[in-house]
């Protein structure tokens, strides 16, 4: 019995109120995180489920945005799970953490409360070796079953390991360059355990996939040559399949043509962003973020620089980015959204059978925007454009592009005229045309209406984001729910669907392009007004020192909420390399809904459902 009165839970107040409520309700089990630069509360592992229940049901933080692990090896020697929960009605995060022992890390699973934690906990298990008691399907997700060790732990060294942090001594100051193969005895990127026994070698990677909970196929029985009579059929789609949008694999359990179970298998493009990112300097990571969601690189830049700027703001000398740089950032982010939606709608139509023609149409329009990116940032795809404190280059005076991309010669345009022509003339005309050809089309309606339905409750519970969430009727958009940059002063609406089917997602994307155009039209005069102003604040530094602390920067990327969890730790004067660099990838977490949406549908529909989620593997697997 507590001897003081527990207030009614604040369902609208700030995270501080919520923390105070939790501390009062769970005395001893919840405490403030007092490390400099850190926020939120630390929850005792034994009480996590109860506390999380209170956070979700009493305080109203019903949307778990991110859950990730941090290894404080040599700096406290514990592991930590960090959760960021939000209210779907908007507002800031409640950040709660659980600490556990490095040797035998065990944390209760939150999947029953927040189904969206499913893949993220599996990822933490895979890369950090944390066991989640009560997780229904705890197995490796990015690496294969049988891989040695948990690679994200700080004391795990990769085969090409050279130093803890870049720049490596050999490169600077020594200045000699070597090929990493030369120092590895096998001449390639491998390392084997010391007690490696080749005679016991077995490839167990697929066994685990087939014995999964949702597939539920008896692998022993399947491979038993005497038993061939079985009613279930297991079909592998991917990793090489034209409709999986990259190297994604689905294992389908079929009854006739109806799907009774679906197990997504990923990691075929797991290229270790986070491990590399923790060796890199902060600045190094910007071009790496380009390669996450490689269709919308500008948006990725935006999220990352925001997270690091949050950290920089903890220091004494910090100036916020200038107005012009914010305008340019938003301009780029919205153009990126159009690029991405053109691409994803084109491919979605591909998936439902409108083979390539709509995609080629959309792509031609996209090329025009890429021309603008190329003229500004120097690259069509991997823009590497934003910096801490601004952007690295102002818009050019003139742009070289062509009028119709097919048989025209290269022309020289004034940038602002080019932009205004694109935003006011070309893109609206194209969207209108696209709408006219497609949206009312009977085949499209037939294939999409009422298929792959995801209810609003499920979408929230599974931490879905972006058009997938909004298609289900939840008007949650980070640009409005937790505004950043200059979005508060811009006028735009958030399109939402009604039923949460494939058509609604398609429609949300179409409408979002119109809204983006609306934003872009408001940006043009702002660009004119701020002409000649600074685009960068602070001194340019190759390796800025970032004050200690943690930050979670999130933006509404075209595919959904993209978050960067960055921890600077280990040096009181500030660090040059992030201690933890985690990407909350919308494509990855949105896939949680793939299985539930597909069960009961036909095989041909699963392709369309996947297309409607709009994943990109660079971000899914990281």
């Amino acid at each position, binding site marked *: 019995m507590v001897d003081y009165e527990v207030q009614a839970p604040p369902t609208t107040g700030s995270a501080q109120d919520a923390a105070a409520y939790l501390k009062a309700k769970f005395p001893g089990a919840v405490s403030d995180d007092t490390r400099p630069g850190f926020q939120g509360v630390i929850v005792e592992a034994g009480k996590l489920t109860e506390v999380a229940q209170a956070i979700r049901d009493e305080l109203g933080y019903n949307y778990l945005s991110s859950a990730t692990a941090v290894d404080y090896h040599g700096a406290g020697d514990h592991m930590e799970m960090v959760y960021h929960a939000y209210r779907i009605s908007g507002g800031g995060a409640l950040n709660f953490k659980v600490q556990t022992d490095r040797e035998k890390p065990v944390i209760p699973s939150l999947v029953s409360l927040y189904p969206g934690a499913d893949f993220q906990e599996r990822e933490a298990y895979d890369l950090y070796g944390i066991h989640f008691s009560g997780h229904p399907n705890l197995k490796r997700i990015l690496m294969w079953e049988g891989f040695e060790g948990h690679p994200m732990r700080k004391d795990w060294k990769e085969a090409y390991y050279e130093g803890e942090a870049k720049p490596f001594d050999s490169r600077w100051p020594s200045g000699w360059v070597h090929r990493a193969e030369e120092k590895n005895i096998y001449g390639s990127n491998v390392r084997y355990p010391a007690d490696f026994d080749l005679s016991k070698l077995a490839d167990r990677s697929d066994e685990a996939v087939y014995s999964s909970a949702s597939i539920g196929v008896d692998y022993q029985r399947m491979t038993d040559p005497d038993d061939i009579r079985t009613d279930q059929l297991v079909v592998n789609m991917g990793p090489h399949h034209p409709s999986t949008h990259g190297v994604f694999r689905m294992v389908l359990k079929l009854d006739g043509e109806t799907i009774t179970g679906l197990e997504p298998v990923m990691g075929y*493009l797991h290229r270790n962003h986070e491990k590399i990112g923790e060796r890199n300097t902060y600045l190094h990571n910007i071009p790496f973020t380009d390669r996450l969601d490689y269709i919308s690189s500008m948006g990725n830049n935006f999220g990352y620089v925001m997270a690091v700027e949050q950290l920089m703001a903890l220091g004494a000398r910090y100036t916020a980015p200038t107005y012009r740089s914010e305008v340019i950032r938003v301009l780029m982010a919205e153009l990126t959204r159009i690029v991405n939606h053109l691409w994803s709608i084109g491919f979605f139509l591909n998936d439902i059978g409108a083979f390539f023609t709509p995609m080629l149409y959309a792509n031609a329009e996209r090329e025009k925007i890429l021309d603008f990116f190329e003229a500004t940032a120097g690259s069509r795809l991997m823009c590497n454009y934003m910096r801490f404190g601004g952007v690295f280059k102002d818009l050019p005076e003139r742009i070289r592009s062509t009028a119709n991309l097919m048989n025209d010669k290269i022309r020289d345009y004034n940038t602002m005229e080019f932009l205004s022509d694109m935003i006011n003339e070309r893109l609206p005309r194209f969207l209108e045309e696209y709408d006219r050809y497609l949206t009312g089309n009977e085949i499209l309606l037939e294939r999409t209406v009422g298929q792959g339905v995801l209810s609003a409750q499920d979408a929230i519970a599974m931490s879905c984001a972006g058009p997938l969430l909004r298609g289900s009727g939840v008007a949650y958009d980070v640009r409005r729910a937790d505004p950043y940059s200059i979005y508060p002063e811009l006028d735009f609406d958030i399109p939402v669907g009604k039923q949460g089917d494939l058509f609604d997602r398609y429609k949300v994307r179409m409408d979002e392009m119109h809204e983006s155009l609306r934003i872009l039209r408001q940006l043009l005069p702002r660009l004119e007004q701020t002409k000649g102003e600074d685009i960068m604040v602070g001194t340019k530094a190759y390796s800025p020192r970032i004050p200690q602390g943690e930050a979670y920067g999130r933006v509404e990327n075209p595919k959904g909420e993209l978050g960067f969890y960055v921890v600077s730790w280990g040096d009181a004067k500030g660090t040059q390399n992030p201690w933890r660099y985690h990407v909350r990838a919308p494509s990855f977490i949105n896939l949680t809904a793939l299985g539930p949406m597909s069960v009961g549908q036909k095989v041909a529909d699963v392709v369309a459902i996947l297309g409607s989620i709009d994943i990109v593997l660079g971000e899914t697997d990281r």
Partner: protein
Amino acid sequence: MSSKELDLRQMHDTEFPLPMEMQGNVAITSLSKIYNWSRRSSMWPMLFGLACCAIEMIGTASSRFDFSRFGMEVMRATPRQSDLMIVSGTVTKKMIVPIVRLYNQMPEPKYVMAMGACASGGGPFKEGYNVVSGIDKYLPVDVYVPGCPPTPQALLYGLIALQKKIDGQSLANLDDVPWYGVGPSEPTPIPILGPDIIDPRQMDLIRRQAELAAAGMPVGVRELPPVIKTVKAIPSKAAKAAVAEVIDEGEAQRREEIMRRRQAVLARKRARDAAKGA
């Protein structure tokens, strides 16, 4: 097919004389040339994207750049119908297993193009624990296209380079075109996902290393050369001696050699200037 492709005068490549009036209709040429011409003019790439580079590959395939101009528009989703595998993106250890399988399923003659930094050598992600340092660790590569990602123009250039390469191949040379040799060719061994990726061709090496490890010798990593510390100012004799210690013999010699050459060049330059002045 454009009429230029069909210009028989270009196909004609023997000493054998043809009457003037027949030159537009008849050509006498070698079998190699006919084979190569037909093969390189209808190259069917596999519809197969790995990572970011695949986006530029699709960009190259679509209307603005349009590689169907080179007879490549028929992208096949199945390896059994394709001639060319464009490895467009980062090859991970998990993915190399299916890639080798796909390659083995492609009928000969087959070509591999490594598109981008990742496929050529690991690229920006080379140090990653799940990344293969270039597809050429497993498959024979015909053309490397640099870039991250290569622009569509660069990819087109790579495709043209591949066509040139095919043009130069000779049926008489089995090193050039192994698929006309006797008997079926060997499939590439499929890597195994053990505690780390295992290339079956490296089994012996791995076994030897494991034995060394059992004997207490270090495995896996060779020693790097020592890091040379640069010392900025050299105030005294003592510091010089300290520098001499870190900079080993060979390094000192190398530097001397560089200084000597530099002096020689300078002397020559002065002499030239003096000659000009005079």
